[in-house]
């Protein structure tokens, strides 16, 4: 499968990564290369094989329904470019 320039532009937009127009052809090439490499896996017949989710048998770790975290709004906001009255402040988004 090959990725064309339009698809590369769309993927960049969806990921909110600013890619200059002149870099798109190279990016499309690299993405295509990755996909081509991955496509080799399709050559293996995996009919009837359960997808493996971990190397050793493991069970999803669970937590009890107890409040053990939170309560530090100042830490949560400490890296925010803009915070006011305990909220993150972001450029207006309106539906």
């Amino acid at each position, binding site marked *: 499968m090959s990725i064309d320039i339009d698809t590369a532009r769309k993927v960049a937009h*969806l990921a909110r990564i600013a890619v200059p127009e002149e870099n798109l052809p190279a990016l499309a090439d690299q993405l295509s290369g990755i996909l081509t490499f991955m496509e080799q896996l399709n050559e293996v017949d995996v009919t009837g094989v359960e997808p493996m989710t971990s190397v050793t048998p493991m069970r999803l770790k669970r*937590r009890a329904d107890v409040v*053990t975290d939170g309560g530090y709004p100042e830490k949560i906001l400490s890296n925010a470019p803009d915070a006011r009255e305990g*909220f993150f402040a972001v450029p207006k988004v309106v*539906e």
Partner: protein
Amino acid sequence: MLDHLAYRTPEPKVIAGAKADWELVIGLEVHAQVASNAKLFSGASTTFGSEPNANVAFVDAAMPGMLPVINEFCVAQAVRTGLGLKAQINLTSAFDRKNYFYPDLPQGYQISQLYHPIVGEGEIIVDMGPGIARRVRIERIHLEQDAGKSIHDMDPNMSFVDLNRTGVALMEIVSRPDIRGPEEAAAYVGKLRQILRYLGTCDGNMQNGNLRCDVNVSICRPGAYEKFIETGDFSYLGIRCEIKNMNSMRFIQQAIDYEARRQIAIVEDGGAVVQETRLYDPDRGETRSMRSKEEAHDYRYFPCPDLLPLEIEQAWVDDIAATMPELPDAKKARFVADFGLTEYDAGVLTAEAENAAFFEAVAAGRDGKQAANWVINELFGRLNKQGLAIADSPVSAAQLGGVLDLIGAGEISGKIAKDLFEILWTEGGDPAQIVEARGMKQVTDTGAIETAVDAIIAANPAQVEKARANPKLAGWFTGQVLKATGGKANPAVVNEMVARKLGLGE
């Protein structure tokens, strides 16, 4: 044990267009906040109304290196909900990432269950009136994270973001397109909410946004829906539009009605409905397109690499099943069968589990119909008037039961019983003691009643003549005697005696 009463299916709503009749086809996605102490993947609190960003863990704020660990109780709540909707429980389910950017979603994705939900197909019986109900099939229930809250009206140029709700567990409950009108849609949400509250898996508070829904609406000509049901072929149905994020029963109905008429007008005009997401504006009473969402609709779902598949054991599911409460349908059917109530009264009494428990405490060992009348008319009437919940009732089930016992034993009349109820409501106390202490006992002593009857007859010769001419007027004497005895005389005894004294015979 009767699972539910027998019902017939309601007629679908028909809307007359300019050229033809149209029917509606509606499916709902309900987002119900799981009742839990902590969030789905973090140990932060789910408490509503805390200071902004106080209930946020580094996991919820999506700080680098933070990993989600699932709250087992939230899983149990989803399973319990599935069991309550008679649904299939999937022992293996898995989490996926739904990718999109929005300021109140710090991760840049929502952890959800697209491909392998924890709960499969179930059903809800939606009551539409005595003897009438729609069976709505449930397609699936999956667990997912809620987003944060954006506030747009605190600053002219900025939106303020509070992440307290970020990561709280939601159950998305998806119905099949089996709902056939605006009233049915509201009734469906009401019934689902009732079941969730019985189960204790969601508090159903719509005002706080703990229960909200997306509504899919399409229109079709009469007969088309039946063909769709027969074949499963969606092409028999119209193109649907999705109305997002409704949290009021009234708005759900208004929005569906508006949206159906909008689509009818388009189609009758020779146009085609475009599949899109719309918002309902209650101020204008109309739906409008959310175009901004359309281009962002590429969610690029993929399995969440931070979470192994969720595997649960049948024995664990069985343990949950063993603790299921009696659900509304079964309780209603039992009240009809055991207490001889009408379906309507049984429906009123079982609307909330606490109400039903109160009624059962009053009715135990007593006349069920009489207990229902007192609980519904006197108690609920009074509670509604004062805006009180059953838990705050000044009159307990034991006190109300005491009143019924006094009526049953012939100690007090129905009229005095209402006075007694009033005293219990305002002052409290033991019903029997109050009746004794305040001389409210019904007079069944025929001697005392006879004296009163004789006195009234002697004092009103003109009325006596009239009553002899027209026996229907004898009731006047009964009224006078009851008045003279302060309502304490047994009306049946008075009636009989008045008739005899006036020589009217039975």
